[in-house]
């Protein structure tokens, strides 16, 4: 397979189509429009491919829910304010156990915010986001290559656990170009018994999230919770970078983790032993892996392009056994590696 140079938004679209996505619905919003446009252009050539520019984000998520239950591999994409609108449908897909991919190319918020890269949607993504007792699997890719790989994996996980999966990236990841190799997608494994395709001569089925009886609804909640526990046990992913000899470890994901790597190079050039712990799945958060690291490393700096959201998961993971500092740049500010290195160097000096 050849390397190709593509922007993040286009990489997601191409990976999705290669993974067998045949239904996409979306509503334009910056900074993810290239993805919607890519799907409009390329679904035309995918056999059985459907592209709908929906009248709203809400309609888009319910369209993919319909196509999902009919048996298609489905995706929708948006950016922060649009993802807020989709929450009703994400909650419903979790309740009805429908697979589907939701891409959030985050921008500054709250409200309309701006169209610059930010990481303020971490809470919304990792805590379920919509109403009710549910979680969505959330990937936080940090390179275009990871966008390609994780988009394909997202479809497999969505099928495996019959649940919506979110790709949480930001405007910088969506817009930047990097060389990418598309891996060969796995063949789809998803039973027809979960689809609605007409009863034929057999028994009719119905799919619902409305369960009026309290005991039945409780059991449905526990059933979902058991599934989420399996995901929590089996699916956490993280990268550790130069942690072996580190005296201080930065915890960051996505674009923030890229900046952190650049900062670490500068810090190490100046003799400071700094490493990176990068969650790749944001939910399930790699709790145990980070806790293990905190057994030998006692100084952490959490860096996010927000006022501090993932830092709460870091605290939950480390449980007071190490010092945790926080550095945040919300609102669309993307600090340089040199900026971040200066901040981290001050913490390093204090601990040294």
């Amino acid at each position, binding site marked *: 397979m050849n390397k190709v140079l593509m922007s993040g938004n286009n990489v997601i679209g191409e990976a999705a189509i290669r993974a067998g996505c045949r239904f996409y619905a979306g509503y334009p919003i910056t900074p993810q429009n290239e993805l919607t446009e890519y799907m409009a252009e390329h679904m035309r050539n995918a056999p059985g491919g459907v592209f709908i520019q929906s*009248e709203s984000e809400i*309609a888009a998520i319910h369209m993919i829910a319909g196509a999902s239950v*009919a048996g*298609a591999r489905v995706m929708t994409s948006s950016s922060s304010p649009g993802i807020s609108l989709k929450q*009703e449908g994400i909650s419903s897909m979790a309740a009805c156990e429908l697979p589907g991919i939701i891409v959030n190319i985050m921008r500054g918020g709250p409200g309309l915010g701006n169209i610059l890269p930010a990481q303020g949607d971490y809470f919304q993504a990792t805590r379920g986001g919509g109403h009710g007792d549910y979680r969505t699997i959330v990937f936080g890719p940090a390179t275009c290559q990871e966008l390609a790989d994780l988009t394909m994996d997202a479809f497999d996980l969505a099928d495996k656990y019959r649940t919506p999966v979110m790709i949480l990236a930001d405007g910088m990841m969506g817009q930047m170009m990097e060389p990418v190799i598309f891996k060969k997608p796995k063949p789809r494994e998803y039973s027809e018994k979960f689809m609605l395709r*007409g*009863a034929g001569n057999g028994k009719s089925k119905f799919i619902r999230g409305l369960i009026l009886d309290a005991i039945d609804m409780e059991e449905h909640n526990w059933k979902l919770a058991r599934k989420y526990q399996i995901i929590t046990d089996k699916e956490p992913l993280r990268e550790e970078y130069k942690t072996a000899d580190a005296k201080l470890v930065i915890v960051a994901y996505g674009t923030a983790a890229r900046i952190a790597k650049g900062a670490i190079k500068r810090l190490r050039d100046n003799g400071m032993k700094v490493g990176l712990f990068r969650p790749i799945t944001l939910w399930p958060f790699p709790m145990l892996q980070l806790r293990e690291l905190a057994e030998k490393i006692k100084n952490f700096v959490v860096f996010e392009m927000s006022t501090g959201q993932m830092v709460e998961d870091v605290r939950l993971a480390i449980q007071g056994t190490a010092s945790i500092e926080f550095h945040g740049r919300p609102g669309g500010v993307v600090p340089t590696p040199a900026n971040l290195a200066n901040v981290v160097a001050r913490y390093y000096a204090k601990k040294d």
Partner: protein
Amino acid sequence: MAKKVFGRPKSLKEAVFHYCPGCGHSIAHRLVAEVIDELGIRGITIGVPPAGCAVLAYNYFDIDMIEAQHGRGPATASGIKRTLPDRLVFSYQGDGDLAAIGIAESFHAANRGENITVIFMNNAVYGMTGGQMAPTTMLEQKTTTTPGGRNKSSEGFPVKVCELFSQLPGTTYVERCAVNSPAGVSKTKKAIKKAFQCQMDGHGFSLIEILSPCPTNWKMSSIDSCKWIDNVMSKEFPLGVFKDNLPAAKKSGEAAS
């Protein structure tokens, strides 16, 4: 040996409707099921019930069904139909579902000319939540949220769905019926059958509005409710065919083949 002349449609389960006495939903369910039986399409039909009184429709229809979130039926139905173009897909919606919270999804599914059918139950009130104002509530009509009667200066006017949707070039067949009399029931069934046939022939979006009594929330007897549809409701919402592009659609279909 006695010949069976009337029975339960095969497309209805053996379940007792939870609907109030005198409610039109039971009649409409039965009519849809009879049409599915008569067209022989039970095995290829997928229904999308709404939030509202008919949310439990999947307890009654013996066909594949998926509940939609409130108002989103036509979006969900669009996703199903585009994925499975040879299936018969219908959404079943109330007046709040279609004309308030889901007006965008309904309007745009119609405007795209999705080859689906909408069964639209208009009873001028929110039934399941206990009788609040609907977008189709009459002027002066008392509901729990318009205790002094619907006032046009603060609550606006009844939304005329057939009149609006028939204006969209994307719609093919639009008719308003009522299930408050034997003749009305029989007409409604014919309309549903025409709409489903329209879809099966690939002619595009059809919508059947059904004026339906809600004695519980109108605080009337069943008989008075039926009279109220004749004397009040159908004055605001006249019955009839608002759009029938089937002859043109058939002609262009023949020309194409």
